[in-house]
């Protein structure tokens, strides 16, 4: 696989006013391949934006280097920047200008001009579905429309690499869905390499070919989703809401004995378990198995045989949240 981005010991240390040092990014090494969506996942303050800022040339690293298409961002910044598009977390547009004027202005900053620029702006406006609002000022746009123009600016010069820094922060589910679909479209239809930073585990899971998990400035895990879950040996979790009147320790022993792959069972009587379903009179039964979906039929059959009524079932497969939890002892959203 061809490498689009290569980070070598990329580091950033800030000096506080009292002279002490803060290591925002600690010697990150990774490679991003051409044509893949690579997600950098981590909680707020983990160092994602600092890393992407160094990669895009916004701030200078205090150690190491980033290579974009083989060009060092510290030594050949202009060559590196020509290959990349940048979509910041904020809506980085001039609200006083129309959508078209914004696109024209930033297109000029990428060296485009004349009829080529105008034609490309028309294409981008069509791509983000804002041709009919192109002459309206950005200040009159909804949040979702602004996000679309924000993405459009990053696509103007047909970059090989696109940096997207938490592009769905603060937008409604409908527009969020639209952004995620656009990201996949850019990879699938245009072969673009995308570096996507997020603290939303679901987005990383949906989009990413590979994921890097970052915490406290350190890259703590790197690989496909499968590789990562395997790495932490996580099990599926099956949550039942049951009528607790038929529950007994004998039943628990029978489940562990007869259901293949079931490793443990936890019972919480009514009022002590997960009340998320809103059924406070029900007991909660949690079962853990290597393959939850395979174990599910046997568990339900045994419960029925024992006269335990099952009201609802939910299977939770191991996810990046669980991986993060396993690696750091903290939830991703903490």
């Amino acid at each position: 696989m061809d490498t689009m981005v290569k980070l070598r010991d990329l580091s950033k240390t800030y000096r506080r006013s009292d002279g002490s040092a803060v290591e925002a990014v600690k010697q990150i090494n990774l490679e991003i391949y051409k044509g893949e969506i690579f997600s950098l996942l981590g909680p707020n303050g983990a160092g994602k934006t600092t890393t992407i800022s160094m990669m895009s040339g916004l701030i200078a690293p205090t150690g190491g280097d980033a290579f974009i298409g083989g060009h060092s961002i510290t030594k050949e910044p202009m060559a590196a920047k020509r290959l990349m598009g940048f979509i910041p977390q904020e809506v980085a547009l001039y609200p006083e200008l129309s959508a078209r004027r914004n696109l024209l202005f930033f297109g000029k900053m990428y060296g485009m001009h004349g009829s080529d620029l105008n034609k490309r702006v028309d294409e981008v406006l069509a791509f983000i579905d804002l041709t009919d609002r192109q002459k309206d000022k950005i200040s009159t746009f909804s949040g979702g429309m602004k996000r679309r123009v924000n993405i459009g600016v990053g696509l103007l010069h047909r970059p090989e690499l696109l940096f997207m820094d938490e592009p769905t922060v603060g937008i409604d589910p409908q527009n969020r869905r639209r952004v995620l679909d656009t990201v996949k479209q850019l990879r699938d239809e245009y072969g673009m390499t995308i570096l996507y930073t997020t603290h939303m585990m679901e987005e990383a899971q949906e989009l990413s070919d590979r994921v890097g998990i970052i915490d406290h400035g350190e890259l703590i895990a790197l690989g496909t989703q499968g590789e990562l879950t395997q790495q932490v040996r996580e099990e599926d979790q099956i949550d039942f809401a049951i009528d607790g009147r038929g529950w007994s320790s004998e039943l628990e022993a029978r489940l562990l004995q007869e259901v293949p792959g079931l490793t443990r069972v936890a019972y919480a009587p009514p009022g002590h378990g997960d009340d998320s379903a809103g059924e406070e009179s029900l007991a909660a039964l949690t079962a853990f198995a290597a393959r939850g979906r395979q174990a599910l039929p046997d568990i339900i059959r045994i419960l029925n045989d024992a006269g335990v009524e099952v009201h609802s079932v939910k299977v939770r497969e191991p996810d990046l949240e669980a991986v993060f939890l396993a690696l750091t002892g903290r939830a991703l959203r903490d």
Partner: protein
Amino acid sequence: MRKIWAIVSKEVYITFTNRNLLLIMLVTPLVLSTIIGLAFGGLGGGDSGGLSLSNIPIVIVNLDEGATFGNALGGGFTADNQTGGGQAFNGGDQIVAILAPNLAEGQNAFGASGDQPVCSLLPEKGADNSRRYSGTLEELFAPALMDDPAAARAAVDRGDYAAAIIIPPAFSQAVTPQFQFGPADDQATNAAAETDVVDSEVEVYANAGQPIEASVTRSVVEAIVGQLVRFNVAITAMGQAIGQQIAASPMDLGDVDPATVPAQGAPLADWLAFMEANADRSPWFAGLAAGLTRFQAAASGDQSAAGGAANNDLGGIVSCLFDPNFEPIQVQQQPLNRVQEQGIFQQIMVQIGAAQAVFFALFTGIFGVLSIYEERKNWTLQRLLASPTSRSSILAGKLGGNVVVVWVQLALLMLFLTLVTSAIMRSPVNIWGDQWGLILLTTVALSLAVSGLGVLVVGLARTPEQVQAMGPVIAIFLGALGGAFGFALPDALANLSLITWGVGAFKSLAAGQGDIWLNLAVLFGQGALFFVIGVWLFRRRVEI
């Protein structure tokens, strides 16, 4: 360069499509200037109630009895047109001829009419070969003549005139050169010098209700009398020196043929020819001949004119002292009169309008630079930095955009001030003068100085909030020093403000003067210095 220009264009577009900003940048200073102009200058600029420095009504009473120049010269020299007995000289007529040329037609210092002695060191001019003192004082004054000093004073008291100029009978006697060739006669010289000073003083009787007009009249009269007195002193000193020298070492005519010595009362040209012809026989002849020739040539600035036939007319030479084409006084009068042609409203619109324009431009300059912080906050700066555009280009575009915005603001304000002044005066007027190149240069210099100050202020501040607090204070401080609020401070303080230098340049240009190089040097110098320091500080504070 294309990218820098794109950033500059964007800055200008964003600024001048923001209605609220336009209200502050253009409408407010325009309204303030107009209100102040109307409050202090009245409506219109001529006779409609506002102070006018043109057509000042004056009355002249010329009692001067004149003097005889030939007598003063001891009967040695006479002009060609005189038939002996000396040349009549009337300084009072000279003053009337200057202040009231239309009323004094035919009168001058050397004769009542006809062949007026004119500056003979200058070429003839005019189809009718006539010469008048060609200054523009006739536009400054609306003169009248009277014979009775008491009646003139009464007319001034009634408010008919701003001032009465009363020339006493002994005026010419007092200002006529007093010396004689030959041994010094201390008694005679002292007697002449002791002419009653009071009797020879020109009186300017002023109307207390029109102090500025009276003051202008007094200044002009003092300047004219001063010329006459200087002439008197110079000629007297020269004559006395020569007389004493002759007395100390009497001339030895040697082998000069007595028949070639010009007769008493002969024209000056004859004496000059005689002295040149005998220059090798006596150092006195040589010195006097060379001195006269050099004087003529230097005075005319034209060697060919120095040898002209009419150059030996003493009256003509004296007239040169009052000819605006000969005397440097014209250089001073011309711009003064240009201002005087303007109405007071127009003058105030230049003074206050320019000061207000620069004052409000200061806000634009300071807060324009602050927009870099705004761009960083909105992440557009980061987006620019992530593009293949150098940091220097981004900074140049932002600061260049600020300079252009300030320049456009100044240019628009100057245009609107002109339109408002024209509308109020009900006639099209160009209040800034017609030296377009210098006006452009001044606005550019001001734009640089204002933007430079903006960069410096933003560079000095640690946070945008500090700029928001400091910016208005600095602008108001400089505005007060620079006279933007209608009161003036001592020069030592006022010169600390770039507004002073800018307004000074605009006032000079409006007055028709082009000598604003010091103003331009200060503004350009200040702008460059502030830019360098400001950008250095700014780059330390903001990672750009």
